[in-house]
């Protein structure tokens, strides 16, 4: 009665219904996630109906229907896993990227397994041969997949060890492990008699050691200096230094974060210890940049000097409390090296005036670019 396709979509609709109800109750009924899940429920229900009615589009004549009914696929849990994958993907969209990627992995894995199972069962009239071709096909995918997953686990565990050890210690561990692998591989190739149970024992021991050490170091945490870097949180407002750099930890690869070159209003350069600026559309230097009010505006900073520099936006003052005490408002880019760039995004809600004077400066460089907000 139920075709494989309709079973899948009925399962998908059921999971969407459960997910939508749970999401609506526990997360947010008016959130886009709820709309997406209810949308999936409706579309899944519609496709289930079509799929059921048309028998997966595979048998619209009575003869075909009889023939299709004669083929009874063996029970499979892959449709359920696939539907679970869809639910995890949707959950990932609403929560975070790791869940989303996990869902995609489940979807791809279940889809491949399900497809091959379905294909192999109808490959020939010989069930035994079908079973053989299925394992042969799956094997070609399973082993590389498992190997990749295994390598991922090894890399993760090993990285925990390297991050927990001191800089020097990590180098020593890396050299020792690499040397041990090379030496053991050389021994195996030169003395084939060593192969067999001894290899299994060595590999098992190494895996156990890696697992124990990896888990232990993952729990103990990264080495103190890395923990300090993370704690410093250079991008946070508290940490940001807009003068001469006092901290010792900052992003030396800040250039890599620039991705807004096509949407900048103006470019500020520092060259030969002096600051200058150009506005998009005018091919000459200006000493004043006019920034639209109440709108995100990107300013590109390009350091052409030998020394590291940062661009500082001086954005007037604001009242600290009701006593009339004011503090300076400003923001700045990371330090950037020679020929590197950074973008500063500003949103200035108040027009410039005698009381609110805005400008760009570069600590350690001469000059100032006035900022006018009409």
């Amino acid at each position, binding site marked *: 009665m139920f075709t494989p396709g309709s079973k899948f979509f009925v399962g998908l609709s059921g999971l969407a219904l459960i997910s939508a109800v749970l999401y609506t109750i526990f997360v947010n009924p008016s959130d886009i996630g709820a709309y997406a899940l209810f949308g999936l429920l409706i579309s899944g229900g519609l496709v289930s109906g079509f799929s059921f009615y048309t028998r997966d589009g595979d048998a619209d004549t009575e003869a075909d229907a009889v023939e299709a009914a004669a083929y009874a696929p063996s029970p499979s849990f892959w449709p359920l896993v696939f539907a679970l994958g869809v639910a995890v993907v949707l959950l990932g969209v609403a929560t975070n990227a790791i869940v989303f990627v996990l869902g995609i992995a489940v979807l791809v894995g279940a889809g491949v397994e399900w497809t091959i199972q379905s294909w192999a069962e109808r490959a020939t009239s010989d069930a035994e041969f079908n079973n053989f071709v299925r394992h042969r096909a799956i094997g070609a995918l399973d082993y590389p997949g498992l190997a990749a997953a295994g390598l991922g686990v090894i890399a993760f565990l090993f990285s925990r060890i390297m991050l927990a050890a001191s800089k020097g210690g990590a180098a020593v561990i890396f050299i020792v492990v690499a040397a041990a692998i090379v030496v053991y591989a050389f021994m195996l190739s030169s003395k084939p008699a060593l192969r067999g149970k001894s290899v299994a024992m060595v590999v098992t021991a190494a895996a156990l050691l890696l697992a124990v050490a990896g888990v232990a170091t993952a729990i103990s945490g990264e080495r103190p200096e890395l923990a300090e870097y993370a704690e410093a949180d250079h991008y946070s407002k508290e940490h940001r230094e807009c003068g001469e750099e006092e901290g010792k930890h900052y992003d030396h690869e800040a250039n890599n974060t620039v991705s807004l070159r*096509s949407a900048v209003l103006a470019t500020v350069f520092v060259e030969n210890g002096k600051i200058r600026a150009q506005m998009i*559309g005018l091919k000459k230097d200006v000493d*004043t940049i*006019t920034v639209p009010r*109440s709108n995100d505006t990107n300013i590109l900073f390009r350091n052409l000097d030998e020394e590291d520099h940062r661009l500082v936006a001086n954005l007037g003052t604001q009242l600290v409390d009701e006593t009339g005490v004011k503090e300076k408002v400003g923001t700045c880019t990371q330090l950037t090296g020679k020929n590197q760039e950074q973008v500063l995004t500003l949103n200035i809600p108040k027009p410039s005036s005698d009381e609110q004077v805005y400008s760009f400066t570069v600590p350690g460089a001469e000059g100032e670019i006035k900022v*006018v907000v009409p």
Partner: protein
Amino acid sequence: MSHIDSVLTKEKAVDTVTPVKSSRRRIITALAGLSGAAFLSGCATNAPQDTFVPKGPNAQLIDNLNMIVFPIAGAIGVIVLTLATYIYIKFRDKGQAIPAQSHGKPVVEITLTIIPALILTVVGVFTFRTIFDLAETEDTELIINVTGQQWWWEYDYPVQDGISQPIITSGQLVIPAGTKVLLRETSRDVIHSYWIPSLNGKKDAVPGRIHLLRLEADEPGIYAGQCTEFCGLSHANMRMETIALSKDDFAKWVAGQQKTYTSPAAGTLAAEGETTFINQCSRCHQVNGIKDANGKPIISAPDENVYSGAAPNLTHLMSRNTFAGAMFDLVTEECRADVWEAKPEEFGAKYLKGVSEDCLNQKDLRAWLRNAPAMKPMYADPSKLEKTNGKYRGMPNLGLTEDDIDKLVAYLITLK
């Protein structure tokens, strides 16, 4: 069959067939009527947004391309439709046997591949050349920031040669004729699209991005436009006009926009209007130079009251001819016609006069002040601002009294 039977049978047949024929005839008539209307609309004389009447070099480039592509595309369209119609009629199902089937004819297939490829190559060469010509910005003479917001356009003129202090205005973009002007478009909320058909093609204004659009007008005049990217409730009412002035007149306009603010004389109705403005309007609308009773400059805070963060700057409101996103005229029909229909050499002087008391369109301005959301659909209902954190999209009904409106009109007319 008797004659009477025959007649009855025919009547029955007529009864059953007539509705079908009748409805088909109605559809054909309606389609013919629509087609005719569409065809005849091309003959409109009062069509300020006609794309086929270029008034500047950029629009001329597009028109030149159209003159190449349209005949080619039209000829192909006519040929294809004629052939298709011929085939539909000639080979329609009349119960005949299915003719012999073949895989195809390589010569025909190759020919029908090469010919379109050649046509597309020709069209592509001219199109790419036009695209690159339109994207030219190296020789820009004036830059203007254009910011779209639901549902009006703001223009600010950065400090540059000839402009010592930034200028901010809205609704009407003023440019010097015969000058290569570069618009740097962006948006504060959703995607809008800036289009003055007689001066250039359209360009989207996208939040967080700056898109460049070149404008240049051959001679002084008013060039109408319309937001062409659906942007919400009042998209249809988001209009704009570009005003081209001679270079001398543009310099006068710049000087006028940089005039310092002068409060109305004490004791006048306008002075009372200034107080009303400070109390009611200056939360969102900036008038540069206006001061409170203590002599402290008043800085509006549209970022705290308006969802998109800004409201039109009204410092020189009466130097422009429109308000509310260029939806309404600030001048009466007669005065507007006088400016619109002015000869290029007289246009600047007439436009620069601004709005006089005689020409002020009091009816629409008062109606706007009385209840703005009734004049232009906006999300300005104070009871429905949950999603915008209490901020308005558009101007709300301020509940002004007729007395307040009298004072405000008397004050606004002074903002030139």
